[in-house]
């Protein structure tokens, strides 16, 4: 990937979660989920964040999408600080896909309700709403009939498609995908990955792809950062990083990829 313009830069991001305990539920310690993490994403690039469970991947995703405030550090969007941004400012530029499509769709609201409210926020008029929702569903390979249905009527793969459509409804520049495949069956994983690749091209998306599956990362990402215990241990273009990893943790992750012998 050649050097293009910078879209998002994070500097020195840290986040700790308190552990409460004792009789009076006071703070007895803390978990450092992220320590001094810095990263850069260029426009149009796919940056993969990899690491074992509990390494801070999801915390990073939540800080970027504004769901969690960082303890320290700054985020810069296109050279401007994101400090004063309101929720809607962020949502217009950054959208997120969650890991478990069974948990990320509200079970009590129809797909139509859940899509329409975003489409409306994105500025569609009442007349455009329905068409826009149908178009979104079509772009993820579902028919407009889905609008009147509820999440429980869909399979895991279909739900993840709906979640992707919901994220795209805001026409974001940056899509954060927090392990979007790991709750799905292997065959479905391949379909969703293909869909993500296709959508990335159609909508010129920049993607922050969180994963622990290096095989997927290899086929999708341009650059990789490796997290361990909340800190960045290695960073680089996907080809060099995966073919000659320098850090022991990256090698351990690579060794953990199951290989089917020929």
């Amino acid at each position: 990937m050649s050097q293009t313009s910078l879209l998002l830069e994070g500097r020195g991001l840290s986040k700790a979660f308190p552990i409460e305990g004792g009789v009076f539920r006071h703070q007895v310690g803390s978990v450092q989920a992220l320590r001094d993490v810095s990263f850069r994403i260029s426009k149009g690039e796919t940056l993969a964040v990899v690491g074992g469970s509990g390494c801070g991947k999801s915390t990073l995703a939540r800080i970027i999408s504004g769901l969690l405030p960082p303890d320290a550090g700054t985020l810069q969007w296109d050279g401007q600080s994101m400090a004063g941004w309101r929720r809607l400012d962020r949502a217009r530029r950054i959208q997120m896909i969650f890991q478990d499509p069974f948990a990320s769709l509200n079970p009590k609201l129809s797909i139509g309700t859940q899509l329409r409210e975003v489409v409306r926020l994105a500025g569609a008029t009442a007349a455009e709403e329905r068409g826009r929702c149908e178009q979104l569903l079509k772009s993820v390979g579902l028919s407009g009939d889905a609008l009147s249905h509820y999440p429980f009527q869909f399979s895991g793969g279909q739900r993840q498609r709906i979640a992707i459509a919901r994220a795209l409804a805001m026409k974001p520049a940056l899509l954060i995908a927090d392990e979007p495949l790991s709750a799905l069956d292997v065959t479905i994983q391949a379909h969703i990955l293909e869909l993500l690749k296709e959508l990335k091209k159609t909508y010129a998306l920049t993607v922050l792809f969180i994963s622990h599956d290096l095989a997927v990362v290899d086929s999708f990402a341009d650059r990789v950062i490796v997290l361990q215990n909340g800190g960045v241990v290695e960073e680089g273009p996907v080809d060099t990083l995966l073919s000659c990893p320098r850090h022991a943790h990256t090698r351990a992750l690579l060794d953990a990829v199951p290989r089917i012998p020929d």
Partner: protein
Amino acid sequence: MIPFLLRRSLHLIPTLIGISLISFFLMQLAPGGPVDQIADMNPHVTPEAKARIRSDLGLDRPIPAQYVSWVKRMAFLDFGTSFTDGRPVIRKISERLPATILLNILSIGLMILLALPIGWLSAIRANSLFDKAMTVLVFVGFSMPTYALALWLMILFGLNLGWLPISGWSSLNFIEVPLWRKALDIAQHLIMPTLVLGLTSLAGLSRYARNSLLEVIHQDYIRAARAKGLSFRRVYGVHAARNALIPMVTLVGLMLPDIIGGGVIIETIFAYPGIGRLGYEAIMTRDYNLIMALTVISAALTVLGNFLADALYAYADPRIRYK
């Protein structure tokens, strides 16, 4: 939705039959009986006379036959006459019904109106000072015996301050005053019983509301709703409320029988002319017909409450109505 409700209402039939069976045979098992009750008043009643009363009342017939005729009468709301004054039971109950329903609807309404905001604010600001203060207050209300709170309120507002009447549900001059004064009079009499019933039953629902919402707001779909850029009100008011309200529907549905039987102690303390006090008096005087009628009515209301809860469930949860 409609087919679901029809199917669900078919389930009511065996339940109601079961209730009538159990309450009837429990009464048969209870020691003593209406004849003893009447005969014991008079030492001159001979065994022959007793037998004649039994056959007059139909009590010498086989028990299953008695059950069938009881159920037949009950189906037309004919619960027989009261033993204490010989008036039809249904009349005695319907006289007391409005006062009780009014009191309990007000107190349950007050409880829900307080419990939901308290529970939800506590959840949104979990572990804040507000949350902790409310936890303490709500449990003080819960642990406080209703009669103690009732007596304290009576002393404070009734005796010391003289603001509110302390017993009955209307004043002595009730008949003479114009309509608006009548309404005002009843309202004044209702304030204290409503407060006592509402405040002491706040704990369950408000804690339930708090936990229910706390559980929901940590779900991914709430994160997703926030990440979508939805307003605070839409995230909590629509996405969270839909899911958090459902478990509470059952709890509220089960309060329906309380509309009739909720305030036995309170009605007795405030000398309030409601069903609760009627039931208390019926038990004290062994007025079987009246007891049976009240038992069956409150059991039927429990079943109805469950049915309504299911109906609301189906309304709130698409998974149920599609099955």
